[in-house]
């Protein structure tokens, strides 16, 4: 890749999503607080270096959500306490519950072991959330929408319409509210809420009919010219795949059957159905304006994202127990070196892709990239 390419191009959103989800997958495989904190720090570092100009607030939202989950678990451990023996921190008054609660008791001893176990578990969920949040921040999911396969074209258009129409709804609501107020009616309370929502809805429905007429007039909905034989093949493959999924579901449910059969059947059935729908479907040629490119850098990002996952797998082999440090007895968690090495490798993409954009430039980039497919909705 040339340096020009590295600096002038936003990376493919799929690459960032793969990177982030691989990091999230790593988080689900360990409860080691060092690894989890390092994962979160790596995600945060990459986001702070490389976040896309769109959707920057969502990372903060996910971080707050993660903190909430952590706090939730700590509160739960305090109130319902799983670990009542160990180094007691506080003695809370105990509340006996009736027998239908199945031996559940409130309060009692709060132990260091219990709180630490809850912290580890909470950190794991928080790390997963932070990784997903980094995906949302690094590449807006709206950009992913542009990569939908042809079979999902209609659904994609509907979502695009929704995306571009939602802001108009807000302005419509504000307009109706102002009109109500000018007529001397109240603009607060449930009744007024209904009074505002209904005109907005009527307006929206009216627009949808107009929009449909406009789409029809421009020849929207042209079907592909797949031959009947090919269509039959696709239909047959989809049905076959779905039958496989149904049988696999039954296999998984049936306790007596070996699950060895169920899982590959499930995977292959899903793969067949998806492949048939996405690749064999209608072959309508649709052009794309400035398509996202997938080049060597994108592959590098994906590989870097998979490195921590591989590291955790390796650590599970080489240092068993380091991935799930024990809290009973209390012990200092060991550091799984392969996992740490993998996370360090995952930091490399922080230097790929677009440089940091000043705010004004970021706004200038936005309409071209995101709002373009929304033209359908206007």
């Amino acid at each position, binding site marked *: 890749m040339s340096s020009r390419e590295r600096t002038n191009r936003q990376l493919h959103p799929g690459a960032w999503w793969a990177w982030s989800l691989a990091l999230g997958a790593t988080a689900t495989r360990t409860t080691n607080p060092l690894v989890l904190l390092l994962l979160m720090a790596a995600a945060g570092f990459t986001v702070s270096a490389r976040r896309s100009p769109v959707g920057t607030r969502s990372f903060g939202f996910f971080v707050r959500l993660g903190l909430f989950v952590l706090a*939730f678990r700590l509160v739960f451990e305090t109130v319902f306490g799983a670990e009542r023996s160990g180094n007691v921190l506080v003695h809370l008054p105990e509340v006996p519950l009736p027998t239908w609660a199945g031996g559940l008791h409130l309060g009692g001893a709060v132990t260091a072991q219990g709180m630490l176990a809850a912290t580890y578990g909470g950190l794991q969920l928080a790390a997963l959330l932070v990784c997903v949040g980094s995906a949302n921040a690094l590449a807006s*999911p709206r950009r992913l929408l542009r990569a939908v396969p042809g079979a999902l074209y209609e*659904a994609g258009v*509907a*979502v695009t319409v929704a995306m571009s129409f*939602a802001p108009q709804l807000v302005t419509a609501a504000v307009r109706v509210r102002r009109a109500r107020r000018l007529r001397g009616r109240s603009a607060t309370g449930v009744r007024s809420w209904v009074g505002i929502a*209904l005109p907005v809805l009527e307006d929206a429905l009216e627009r949808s009919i107009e929009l449909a007429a406009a789409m029809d007039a421009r020849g929207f909905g042209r079907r592909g010219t797949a031959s009947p034989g090919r269509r039959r093949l696709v239909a047959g493959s989809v*049905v076959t795949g779905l039958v496989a999924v149904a049988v696999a579901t039954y296999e998984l449910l049936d306790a007596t059957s070996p699950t060895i059969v169920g899982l590959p059947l499930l995977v292959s059935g899903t793969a067949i159905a998806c492949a048939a729908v996405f690749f064999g*479907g209608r072959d309508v040629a649709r052009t794309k304006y400035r398509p996202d490119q997938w080049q060597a850098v994108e592959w590098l990002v994906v590989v870097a994202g998979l490195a921590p996952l591989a590291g955790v797998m390796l650590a599970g082999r080489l240092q068993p127990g380091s991935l799930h440090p024990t809290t009973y007895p209390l012990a200092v968690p060991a550091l799984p070196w392969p996992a740490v090495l993998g996370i360090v490798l995952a930091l490399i993409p922080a230097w790929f892709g677009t440089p940091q954009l000043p705010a004004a430039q970021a706004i200038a980039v936005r309409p071209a990239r995101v709002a373009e497919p929304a033209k359908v909705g206007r």
Partner: protein
Amino acid sequence: MTTTALATPAVRRPVAIAVRWRSTFALTVASLFGLLAFGWPFLLHGTSANVDAAHTTDAPWIFAIVLPLLLLVVLAELADGGMDAKAIALLGVLAACGAALRTVSIDATGVSPVFFLLLPAGRVLGRGFGFVLGMLTLFGSALLTGGVGPWLPFQMLATGWVGLFAGCLPPLRGRAEVAMLAAYGAVAGLAYGALTNLWFWPFETSGLSPQISYVRGASWLVELHHYASFYVATSVGWDLSRAIGNAVLVLLAGRTVLLALRRAARRAAFNSPVTFVPAKRVG
């Protein structure tokens, strides 16, 4: 045949998205799999009691990967020939309304007016439309708020079910219809909460007090008891307020929304034009 159907207002139920046998099959399989994906803590206990370790730790992974793919297949099947420009426009606009309603309501009360629009829409425009609208509403609101995560397919499926069953309610009219929708809204609100909580229950509570958490390898009755305790302890208040909120909103505005949707559906004339029969007769 089509002309008579068009002429008389006897067709009370326009079908915005035709559900053909292939889409029905795909929908059924995906729903069955979705049930497994939601209910695996109760369903996947198997014979190996205490240490179903690999199975139950990997199960969520498999579901989280396979379920969205199956939902995409269902969407593609429903769209294949069953979705015209009018359906898409109506879907987009209603999904935007629903998404806007959802972003408005993210607060502590738990009252979420998403269903307020979804129930009448599923009722008026058919079960296929209700299902797709439910899924796209959730997807759209996740895109708007930047909240796309592994929970999204599960929420989409649950909301899709709410819309789907709203399209399957018995044919009543007038006040009875609104009352039925309100009751259904209340039930759906509760069921939706219980289902979507079920998705994260095993992760959220793993390692917490065993009486409220998923215990690997326990029998389904035990798991159900634990889940019920968890549900009562954490979320029944929110879900009740959501259920009541749904019912009240539908009772207040359901009639008007139904009328507005029916008028839009009549103007869109979903059942008529695809066959081109009148054009041939004229020509």
